[in-house]
């Protein structure tokens, strides 16, 4: 077996110190990392268990501060989350299974890795995430579930999280702590697109720890929704998912925040669509035009072209649903 050490961090400082050696990895709920260890995709020399760090969920100036060790279930069920950020609660509940959500942490959810089957089949296939530079076998294989936005010839894997899609739409910030101190990065800036280095998935420095997620106060008058399209009714990753927050006054879109899951290597904030929406009419035609504008950049492959139309339709329907809800 591949030996590794295990240590449980007592506090953030302790965690960062323990993870100071090369080959260290933080362990949250283990719902993804343990699978990766078993498949030998990940081969860390040290595991630093950070589940004992902050898991608090607290008001923070009208916004919310969520400790990175908070379990997904605890976040989804929290009163402040359900009242202020229902889109986050719905996104979390759309993911995985009850058992997995009970174990998975917020920090771990942000850093979970793609479920691209080529990434997991160590014996059978090449993967640039596993072995940088060796090539990507997913590009020429069955890739119905793979990315249509933000991918590169080196990697077409999608980010699997539902929670992150809602966080991206909510303008969440991520608190980081490293040996050199603390910093804050926007959730939308946490993950990197693959480019020629798909093995580098985030902007985290080696040993840097996610300590919490900060949500700004909700925008008054915005309605929100999360919709996940998938092959079966539960326990399946998104073909396309949409997190949307929409403000409308007198038939005109006053604010729009939109993010997509299942289509890109990172939680995909749909800035192009947002620009198209804001100030425009709150009509299905305008919504579809905005969605099409966002998806104009799509680069579908042989098997996943349907995701383009599916994303356009789902965005349009979600926004339209929010307007109808408003009227009702």
């Amino acid at each position, binding site marked *: 077996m591949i030996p590794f050490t295990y240590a449980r961090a007592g506090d953030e400082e302790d965690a960062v110190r323990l993870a100071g050696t090369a080959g260290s990895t933080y362990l949250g709920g283990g719902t993804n990392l343990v699978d990766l260890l078993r498949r030998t995709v990940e081969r860390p020399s040290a595991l630093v268990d950070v589940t004992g760090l902050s898991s608090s969920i607290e008001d923070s100036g009208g916004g919310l501060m969520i400790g990175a060790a908070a379990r997904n279930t605890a976040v989804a069920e929290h009163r402040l989350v359900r009242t202020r950020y229902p889109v986050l609660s719905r996104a979390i509940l759309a993911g995985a299974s009850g058992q997995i959500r009970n174990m998975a942490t917020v920090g771990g959810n942000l850093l979970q890795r793609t479920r691209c089957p080529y990434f997991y089949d160590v014996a059978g*296939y090449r993967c640039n995430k596993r072995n940088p530079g060796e090539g990507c076998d997913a590009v020429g*294989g069955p890739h119905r579930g793979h990315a249509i936005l933000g991918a590169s010839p080196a990697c077409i894997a999608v980010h699997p999280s539902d929670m992150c899609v809602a966080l991206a739409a909510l303008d969440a910030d991520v608190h980081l702590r490293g040996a050199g101190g603390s910093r804050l990065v926007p959730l939308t800036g946490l993950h990197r697109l693959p480019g020629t280095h798909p093995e580098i998935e985030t902007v985290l420095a080696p040993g840097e720890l996610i300590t919490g997620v900060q949500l700004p106060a909700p925008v008054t008058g915005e309605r929100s929704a999360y919709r996940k399209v998938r092959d079966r009714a539960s326990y399946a990753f998104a073909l396309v998912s949409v997190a949307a927050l929409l403000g409308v006054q007198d038939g005109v879109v006053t604010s729009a925040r939109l993010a997509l899951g299942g289509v890109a290597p990172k939680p995909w904030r749909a800035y192009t669509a947002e620009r198209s929406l804001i100030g425009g009419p709150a009509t299905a035609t305008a919504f579809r035009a905005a969605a099409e504008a966002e998806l104009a950049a799509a680069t579908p492959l042989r098997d996943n072209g349907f995701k383009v139309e599916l994303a356009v339709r789902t965005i349009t329907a979600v926004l339209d649903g929010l307007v109808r809800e408003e009227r009702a």
Partner: protein
Amino acid sequence: MSDAHDAKLVEEGAALARRPGRTTTPVPAVPENWAGVAHADPLSRGHRGYVGTPLARLDGPVKVRGRAPFAAEYGYDDLAYAALAYSTIPKGRMTGLDTAAAEASPGVVLVLTHRNAPRLNPQPGYDMSLRDPGIGFERLPVMQDDRVHWNGQPIALVLAETQEQADHAASLIHATYAAEPAVTSFAAALAAGTRPLEIFGRRIRVELGDAEQALAASAVSVDETYRTPPHHHNTIEPHAVTVAWHGDELRVHDSTQGVLHTAWTLGQILGIDPARIRVTSPFVGGGFGVKVLWQHHVLAAVASRTAGRPVRLALSREGVFRMTGGRPPAEQRVAVGADEDGRIRAIVHTGAYATTRHSPWPEPLSMASQNHYASDAFVLDTSMAYADLVQNCSMRTPGSTIGFFALESAVDELAGKLGMDPIELRLRNETATNPIGGKPFSSRHAAEAWRAGAERFGWSRRSPVPGSVRDGEWLAGMGCAMVSHHYQRRPGGAARIRLTADGRARAEVAAHEMGMGTATVQSQILADRLGLDIDRVSVGYGDSAMPGRFLAVGSSQSAGIGGALLAATRNLMDELLKLVRDGSPLAGLTLAEVGAVNGGLAALDDPSRHESYESVLARAGRAELVVEGSGEPPAEMANVSMFSFGAIFCEVRVSSVTGETRVSRILGSIDCGRVLNPRTAASQFRGGIVMGLGAALTEETVFDDRNGRIVNASLGDYHVPAHLDVPPIDLIWTDIPDPYAPAGARGIGELSSTGVAPAVANAIHNATGRRIRDLPITPEKLL
């Protein structure tokens, strides 16, 4: 089934437990030469007893408590754990196989490869002549040379002190290959040409009249192509064996659908007398056709003998995908022609599927169309295309699950063209005799099942206009399809009954419990045949040392055990009468004059002449009486055509935005002869329907066509239905005993999965106007 129905069953079960419940009138022995004689079995003649009651499964408590031992749970001192390494190319030779790192890995006991494996005989495969009890599908040599035949073939076995050590060491094995050109896609296999399928050495082609001519002459016709992907069974319990040699005797704890067959087949391969191999399998966590002999049996036995230690080999879920196959991909043409009034004049059903060149295994697609609609003309045929893929095998209702998808979709399409209700179309083509061969059906109440199902489901509320029922973005529709499966009693059934002085009876049969309730139902039958309370009988099974040659396949086991048990009970009654002494109320009575009742035998014409089993044995000074009985050759299938029938009704909602389909309710209306136990039968029907839903909407084994490797080899990626995908399942049955079947029951295991996929596809058409002829019906097909 509805909650109310469930509650009713629970209530009935409780009531049953409170009363003796047993037979109150003497049940005579089934006479010899019963097979083929209508109503020869008293249990098929409106008999009331335990049979037909919803007895709770006898193995329920032990399973709920987690105390039911499965194959990978048997412990031995000194047990060693095995793991397998698999090939990563589809075809060629291994030019190198580096095992040094694995051998040096901590805890490793043995690394077995073709270089050090002992010489073995070839796998005999499954003997389609039924002469030899072979049970494997694949006939390749097991780890005997450097050849690779498919992507995922076991190339090395590692034995270690712990499972983790074995798994790790197996990951260190590295092979290099000289690859050879391989056929790794169904399309390439079809392009290379097909060969006619033969079963029992004969082509299955059926021709009656000139079907193509009749089709062309039909007033209305459909002629379409239907495509279905490969599937894997995904039993909840992955394949596993724990094996131990005791000198020259091999003990195998298995998860199998054929204990005796596994012992025999292993004996052939290992070159030892099968009588020296004992295979037991008390619990099987799902079979569906795939719990047969695969290479892991052989490798575990060989590794155990080589290492001199007991061995456990439990396949990982990935391992199950890599080295055991499932339902093959298929492409079918179904054409149906009819008069304007819906009378079917021609059926053409032809198709091809992929199998291996070394071990072609039948998937008889066209047999779905063989026994139902009263057409004048038929052409039915199936052909094979060879591919270098994992061996295909039988999967719940071979041929028919996907064959019925094609046939019953086409019939629905025909109804649409005729402007006729699809149930009315089917009723107009009902037949009392098998359209092929003309034999009368033993008992066919398909029309009653259709009518009762339509009534209960509310079919009259279906809009005949596709795409006309909308609820917001959701389009709603109803669909239906026929289900059917043939009755089968396989030869070789036998049973032993041990009656003891305390008035208890235990039957033993080398049969199988895969979750369907075998022991429960057979205990009910045994109690009724012997006039005993249910708690005074037991049924032993799952042991190759027990009598009978049973396979839990083809919905044949209940009939097989039934035929054996009725012979053994007759022999038991006969032997008991020989023990009767003067002074007994039974003195002077012959077998034909007695029946079993109230824990003993009684005169049929005067039940007050009764003596208990305890008394008979006590008077004779016997501690026990042991008899055996063998099932007669299955002559009942000779002169009548024996099939179960039914109809599946379902309602779907399809999102007009995303193409997602949700099945909102489903009903099975079943005509399967007598329902021996409504509770276990309902469970089996539900399971079949859920599997059918998977085939309809979510399931596909995804092969990488470039190298024949399975891409979604996990339960995360291979989508069996999740709980939220399964709607309330309602079930009703005609419960009309089949006069020719033991206890009047025709067998149900395969039946319910056959018509589900077409019922769903037909409902989707009704909801959306879109006809999908390509499974699974995933969202993008409905965008």
